[in-house]
């Protein structure tokens, strides 16, 4: 560690390409698993959507981990750097929970107090014919 100030990242003269390809196959494999699950769900309605969403989120985080750790090489940096990036990123945990919780609460409040909104969101409509009328999104009562 004596040459730390002579320009970073030069301690390892040769760069191993084996983990790159392994990471590529992992990422490709995870994506294929996601697509297979989605296709199975389309055909058979199994597994249930909420189970599937949980699986998707875990697989997405796994992919993110591999991209950051191997492609961006963060796993091979000093722990100081890893922690300086990982700690702020933990804000996302609060960020996600707070805002999704809030959104859910908005939905419940609106369904409780806005009868018109509930009625609107239960009325089935016909798909407008191709290009004939202005897309129906301009109806009153829909959010702009």
């Amino acid at each position, binding site marked *: 560690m004596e040459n730390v100030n002579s320009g970073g990242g030069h301690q390892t003269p040769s760069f191993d390409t084996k983990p790159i390809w392994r990471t590529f196959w992992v990422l490709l494999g995870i994506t294929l698993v996601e697509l297979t699950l989605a*296709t199975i769900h389309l055909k058979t309605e199994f597994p249930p959507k909420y189970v599937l969403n949980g699986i998707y989120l875990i697989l997405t985080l796994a992919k993110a981990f591999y991209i950051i750790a191997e492609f961006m090489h963060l796993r091979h*940096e000093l722990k100081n750097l890893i922690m300086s990036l990982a700690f702020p990123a933990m804000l*996302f945990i609060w960020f996600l929970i707070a805002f999704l919780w809030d959104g859910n609460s908005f939905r419940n409040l609106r369904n409780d107090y806005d009868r018109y909104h509930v009625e609107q*969101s239960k009325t089935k409509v016909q*798909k407008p014919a191709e290009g004939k009328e202005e897309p129906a*999104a301009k109806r009153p009562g829909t959010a702009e």
Partner: protein
Amino acid sequence: MAQVIPSGQKWWSGGKSPYNVEYGKLMMWFFLMSDAFTFGAFLISYGHIRFSSNAWPNPNEVFKAFPLMGEMNLPLVFVSLMTFILIMSSVTMVLAVASGHNGDQKAVTKWMILTIIGGLAFLSCQAWEWTHLHGEHAWWGRNPFLNADGTQSSTNFTNFFFTITGFHGFHVFSGVIINIIMLIKNLRGDFARRGHYLMIEKAGLYWHFVDLVWVFVFTCFYLL
């Protein structure tokens, strides 16, 4: 874990670089951190609106087209192709970084060209998808798709889709520009003269970040 650190190392008492990365690379990391929060804010506001809606369009109904396949029902196929292109170009980018580490100027050129081609291919795919959706009357402020349960959908769906994929596409576009600049500098021999290819590494960090964001966009818009 390439680096061996003696136990009891006092990183913050001076005389050592506590991060042991070059300044520009560290700043790139912190820029990407802030950019991650920008994208996070976009995606979480999308999630917030989706959680506050009683119903939402089914992505498999909306994104089912493939170029030259007409009206065939092919959900997920096109976006899988886009994902594959971006992962592949990420791989060629790491290989460029690896060649830079080994000081191999020719190999850097080769992998940078492939990375740029991958980025342009991804942008072309996105251009096609946007054109297709626009042809179906989807755009900011108008949404021709119904909710999955057949009820009237709001324009939130298209607004978020075009804003977030557009912002990501803009990142890909600027990434391609950065990569082209790096390629030109490499061809001029700037890095070879400097003795290191750290600029390629910094461009690579940005490029992988674009791939990283796409992983989340892919899940949020096409799978969930």
